[in-house]
């Protein structure tokens, strides 16, 4: 009886602590932006974005969509001048056991047999085209913001939605660039 009780107390403490620890705080890391062939491009990746639950869902064969939204603002103005988004889609082939990652900013799909590699690639943004240089005017200051959000996973036939953003505490990771001018980009 006391054994069961102490086991219960331990599991209760673990469960109570998991209330606070089951969530992760995703962050943009290794971010950079530059002009490439007259286009402002952004590179970066999201770190600390996986936990056991998210991995379990990824390995179940359900399609997971990670949407990157980017907005260009003029410095001092919250209303975006330009807004667009790109999506990364990962799906596990339950029969042949490989991961397919489609990125809307890329033409070809990527295939991974290793889960860790797939995870790394899924959250990686490489030379994301933000805007052409013609968009930017001389003498004005700009900044851009990139955010990422996971779409809910809908389990067909079970009519059940899994809100993936709850694992990120409903806080999308955000990158905000420093203020820049056209001159800064060209230099």
């Amino acid at each position: 009886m006391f054994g069961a009780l102490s086991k219960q107390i331990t599991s209760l403490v673990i469960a109570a602590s998991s209330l606070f620890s089951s969530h992760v705080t995703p962050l943009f890391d290794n971010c950079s932006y530059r002009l490439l062939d007259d286009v402002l491009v952004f590179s970066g990746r999201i770190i600390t974005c996986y936990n056991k639950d998210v991995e379990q869902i990824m390995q179940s064969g359900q399609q997971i969509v990670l949407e990157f939204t980017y907005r260009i603002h003029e410095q001092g103005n919250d209303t975006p001048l330009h807004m667009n988004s790109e999506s990364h889609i990962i799906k596990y082939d339950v029969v042949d056991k490989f991961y397919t990652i489609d990125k809307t900013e890329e033409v070809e799909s990527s295939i991974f047999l290793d889960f860790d590699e797939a995870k790394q690639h899924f959250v990686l943004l490489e030379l994301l085209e933000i805007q052409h240089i013609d968009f930017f005017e001389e003498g004005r200051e700009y900044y851009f913001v990139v955010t990422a959000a996971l779409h809910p996973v809908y389990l067909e036939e079970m009519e059940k939605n899994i809100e993936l953003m709850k694992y990120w505490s409903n806080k999308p990771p955000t990158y905000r660039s420093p203020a820049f001018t056209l001159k800064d980009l060209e230099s």
Partner: protein
Amino acid sequence: MKLPSFKLQIIVIMFILLVISGLFTRYFFMTQFNEYSRDITSLNLYDKVHDLYGNHKDSIDKEEVSPILTDINKIELTTYLFRKEMTLYSTFYVVISGLVVLIVMLVVLTLITRPLSRLQSGTKTIAAGDLQTRIRESRFSPINELISSFNNMVEELASNRDKLLQAEKDMMWREMAQVMAHEIKNPLTPLRLSTERMEMKYWGKSENFDKIFQDSMEVINEEINNLQHLVKEFSKFARMPSANFNEYDINEQIRDIIPPYRGKADITLTLDPELPAFYGDKMQMKQVFVNLIQNAIQAMPARGMMEITSKYENRTFIFMIKDSGEGISPDDMDRIFRPYYTTKEKGTGLGLSIVKRMINQHQGTIEVDSKRDEGTIFIIKINLRKKDIEDYNENFSN
């Protein structure tokens, strides 16, 4: 070690019981669900189907197998997530329900213990003699009926006490009237006899009228003196002044009182030389000792022995007056301090009653022990200190 309050004890016990019951409830449901979850996993449906497809790749289309494997994964995934949610929700349940029950318990216990505290302080006040006290009722309290009954009981007590006091007062008046009637009747007979004798001798022109007149006048004057003494004693009893407390040497007082009585009894003094200064009314204490010494002498008509002792123990002054008289009968022992009660032929019955009242004014006690033909001992105990009177005056002077 002082135990925590009743309220805290109940809260701790209830909280422990609640946590244990919550944990066991959680344990029961989680065990059931874990078994169910293990049963699903142990089926290894995914591997079985996958192996089946691997072995019959040529005859089974991948597009047919894929949804089945996805569905199996869906089941395992939802089971895994549900289990996790259950763990969280059951934890929430234990914590939240525990808090809710604690709050409810706190409110209920407050509703119970607060009136109980009022009841407790009320009983103390009533024990101190204040029958006007009433406990405030609270209609939300589960013990409101008890409070209501308690208030009714106090009301009854107050009413009965008033009746009792009235009855005692009536009885006292009756007793006093009887004593007065008896005391007045006694001198009236010789007065009447003396006046009748004088009248008879006067009208009979008796030769020895002068002698009879003189004798009768002596009797009349003596009885008038007796009546005056009686009136004086009653008046003194009715108008006993309040005590005037001072510090003084009570041994010295006893020594000063004794000399006039040395001729009537063999008096031994055993006075504690270490006795601290006594705090009391010097006049009243003198009267106390004089009354008790006179009583003792009257109890020893054939010159007996008397011992007067003073000592100080446990911060209490103890005085003992012991005689070798005939003692007091057991029937009289209970009544000797009652006013107007006397066993003497020429007594008012006020002496010991006055002594008791004076000792009471000094917040002391007087006890009596007596054995037939061996003697009587009166024991006075007073532990009044100067500080007590100062505290009393400070608290009750207004």
